[in-house]
């Protein structure tokens, strides 16, 4: 049905991300030996990708719509602490912990969205504010309630099975969640009408609104989604690692944005794909974890991460240019 020429594949937003992923995989398969590609070695980077990917896709949505959410950086540890305090310190049932934590996350996401929509202050600034607010509130509340900044949580077996356990020896259950959510997000962005609205918003918000798209509702919804996703990862981590502590969680901000950008989403919005972000996240996880399978000096790891990322992003740029200038070959010659 579709013209599946190489040209038409190359103009897809995820093409660069895919080739980047293949490149990184081959690189580490060569230098990291068979452990990197082995069943348990693959779990190493897939686990990291899953934790990152669940947040990266909603961040990608926001970026496609021309927004950004830094507050996820504080949301991950905040949710982790909330979970730890409610179900660990106070010993309430896991579901109560999950429910309340998700409720907090939804509230903060909603606050982010409302402020962005009402004030038109760039979301970078707004969420930077909420980032610190959430971090401060987490610290204050955990000391106020528990007198410490770290709590332990021993989840019952069923909760571990659902949110944080290992299968086949080393595969985290969160990988399944990640795959499921990715499938739903692919539908949302590429096959549902709402996906079109997101692209339109990223292209030109005013025109999108004039075309009848409920841009405000959609923006608020996106912020709630990113906040909830961050909270979900925080919850899973707490249940898996039996522990929660106040931390800055700043690494999540950079790591998700980097994954999204490797995935082919542009910082100015309007362009990108879920599958691209999916590949981008795997690429980033492989770059980050791959080095531990190699014999490179560990002190070089940041350098290698940096260079790999630059290569990936430059590849994306090239492919986007190709997408813009590409004219499909005449179908009937």
């Amino acid at each position, binding site marked *: 049905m579709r013209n599946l020429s190489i040209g038409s594949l190359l103009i897809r937003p995820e093409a660069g991300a895919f080739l980047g992923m293949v490149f990184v995989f081959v690189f580490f398969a060569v230098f990291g030996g068979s452990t990197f590609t082995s069943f348990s070695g693959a779990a190493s980077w897939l686990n990291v990708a899953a934790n990152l990917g669940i947040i990266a896709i909603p961040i990608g949505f926001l970026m496609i719509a021309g927004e950004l959410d830094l507050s996820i950086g504080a949301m991950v540890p905040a949710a982790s602490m909330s979970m730890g305090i409610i179900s660990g310190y106070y010993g309430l049932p896991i579901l109560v912990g999950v429910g309340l934590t998700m409720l907090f996350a939804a509230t903060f996401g909603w606050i982010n969205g409302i402020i962005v929509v009402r004030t038109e202050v760039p979301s970078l600034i707004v969420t930077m504010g909420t980032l610190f607010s959430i971090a401060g509130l987490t610290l204050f509340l955990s000391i106020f309630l528990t007198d*410490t900044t770290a709590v*332990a949580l021993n989840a019952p077996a069923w909760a571990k099975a659902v949110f944080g356990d*290992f299968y086949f020896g080393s595969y985290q259950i969160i990988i399944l969640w990640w795959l499921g959510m990715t499938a739903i997000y692919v539908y949302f962005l590429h096959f549902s009408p709402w996906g079109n609205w997101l692209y339109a918003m990223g292209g030109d918000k005013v025109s999108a609104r004039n075309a009848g798209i409920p841009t405000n509702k959609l923006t608020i919804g996106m912020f709630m989604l990113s906040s909830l996703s961050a909270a979900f990862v925080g919850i899973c981590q707490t249940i898996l*690692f*039996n*522990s929660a502590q*106040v931390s800055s969680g700043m690494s999540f901000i950079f790591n998700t944005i980097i994954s999204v950008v490797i995935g082919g989403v542009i910082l100015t919005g309007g362009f990108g794909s879920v599958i691209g972000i999916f590949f981008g996240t795997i690429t980033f996880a492989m770059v980050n*974890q791959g080095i531990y399978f190699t014999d490179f000096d*560990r002190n070089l*790891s940041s350098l290698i991460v940096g260079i790999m990322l630059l290569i990936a992003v430059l590849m994306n740029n090239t492919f986007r240019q190709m997408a813009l200038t590409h004219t499909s070959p005449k179908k009937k010659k």
Partner: protein
Amino acid sequence: MKLFTNMLKSTAVAAVVMTASVATAPAADIAVIAGSIEDGFFNLIKKGVDDATLVVEANGGSVNYLRTSNYDNFGPDLVQLINTAVSQNVDGIAIPVWVPESQVPALKAAAAKGIKIMIYNSGASIREEVSGINYFGSDEFVAGVAGGEYMAKNGAKNIICHIQSPGAVNLEARCKGVKEGAAKHGAISTNLPLPANLDQNVTATSEAIKAELLKDPTIDAVITLAAWASDAAAVAIKQAGGPDKVKLGTFDMSPAVLARIKDGTQSMAIDQQPYLQGFLATSMLAAHIDFGTELATDPVLTGPAIIDASNIDTALAGVKKGAR
């Protein structure tokens, strides 16, 4: 509420100090400068400072607790806090010295104005240079040696020492100590520095440690330098042979660390007892200013105290009270 009263207190202090500086100071007004608000370790220091404050206030003095907001602009931030304290005309400053190049000149200037300096947590080596009274803290290297010895004595042969923020002098010193302590009993220790973008990222750190364990099956012990990293390592060990094959030790502690020591999945935690650092630095500084007391021991090491299965229950009691 607490914040508000603290603010009132500090403005009141400032007012008192203004008038007091003309006459002779009735009692010690001191500033305690501390690390980031996000750093859980400093909540334990603060607990010590808070308890000492009760004593200082009973003697008519005051304590102003100043923290950096984060560690991103560390040196300049600390100098700024020193200058803030100096401008408040305090009689003494208790401070950790992490960035000697930045802090030493500022502290020298403060000392030249007659302000008494007390060093805690870090900076034993420059105490004399800034005319510090004493040092309360652990020696990272000594603590590392203790950790390495402990692991080696308990049968470890090949240790990895995880560094979450490569290049940080105190962390590198810890792992250097581990290496030395291990060597004393015929074991080796290798450093595992992870890039800073994995700092506080439990999943990625866990997977990285696991990768190391899978790559080199002779590794039989892991030492981490922070409580969260120990959580990560515990999960990695569980997948790569279990706690019977790979021992786990860590610097610092958390409820989860203690729970693991209690149930036997972690060997030990090295505690530098921050409560004592905060408590002693504050109370000894005030006593020195008020009463001229001096400790004969210098430096005063508050650690390492090793927590293992033998003393876990008393440690847990201290944690409940927010002091460990």
